[in-house]
């Protein structure tokens, strides 16, 4: 009798990790991610469906339970949820919007420690001082040669979202940078 083949989803960085005094890197837990684009008129309906407010100010994010919305552009958000799929919540919304599941396009890396900002700054040209990039700030930016979404989740903890195929590069870059920063 033929056996049913079952595909197993593996992350691209499952064996990676880096830990040094002052700067450590870990793989973020697998999450649901949605690229959400909507005009001003649809925002309130979407907020109600998703159960969290969509930030309107540049470089800001909002969190509600396991779900977070990151401002990427004037009409663009990245919705991340570690538990439930935001698409099931937004599916019934009639108002004009575009919600695309990008859960497996992105890989999340968490850089934490006293020198986390220095580790990220090794390849990211943005000002990451607490005044310019407070807790909750998020931005699409660059890391070395690739594009990332950077999100400061807590003091000394950065969440970095990069594309899956770029993740070995991102991790190697951050490892070298974290080693230098912690030294």
């Amino acid at each position, binding site marked *: 009798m033929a056996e049913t083949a079952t595909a197993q989803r593996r992350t691209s960085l499952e064996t990676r990790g880096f830990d040094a005094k002052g700067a450590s890197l870990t793989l973020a837990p697998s999450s649901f991610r949605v690229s959400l684009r909507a005009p001003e008129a649809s925002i309130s309906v979407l907020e109600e469906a998703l159960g969290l407010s969509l930030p309107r100010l*540049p*470089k800001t994010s909002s969190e509600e339970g396991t779900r977070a919305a990151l401002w*990427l*552009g*004037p009409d*663009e958000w990245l919705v991340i949820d570690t538990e439930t799929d935001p698409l099931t919540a937004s599916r019934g919304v009639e108002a004009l919007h575009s919600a695309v599941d990008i859960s497996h396009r992105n890989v999340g890396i968490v850089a934490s420690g006293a020198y986390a900002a220095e580790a990220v700054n090794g390849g990211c*040209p*943005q000002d990451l001082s607490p005044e310019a990039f407070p807790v909750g700030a998020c*931005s*699409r*930016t*660059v890391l070395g040669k690739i*594009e990332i979404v950077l999100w400061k989740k807590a003091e000394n903890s950065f969440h970095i979202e990069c594309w899956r195929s770029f993740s070995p590069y991102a991790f190697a870059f951050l490892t070298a940078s974290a080693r230098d920063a912690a030294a």
Partner: protein
Amino acid sequence: MLLIRCPYCEEERPELEFRNGGQAHIARSTDIVQESAEAFERFFFIRDNPKGVIFERWRHIHGCGRFFNAVRDTITDKFHHTYKAGEPQPDLNELIAANEDRRMDEGRGDMPADQGPGSWANVPPDQINVAEPAADASKGDA
């Protein structure tokens, strides 16, 4: 690294996040079929290449993704002003006057506007690299 102010992100960002989009304020004809070949050539191929102030489109491609317009000096690379796409072309004289006012407000009034690294580019090379006569020039090769 240049810091460019994105009018959508409302702050200065490093230039690595941006991409130049060519000359700004080029209007596409509403009736391109009726347009003469010469007029189409002007619209499609002919661009200004000024030495000095230029109105350009820029895109915050590794940021908010938006196109916007910028007023840049091609000699000094100084960004005089950035504004959202679709907004009218600002008057150059008013911009210069506003910048001058800001310079005074910031207490830089005693420093002439034509001094500083940015202004050096306006000086012909032979006047910048003035050869200092060596102290022992008289003992040089005969």
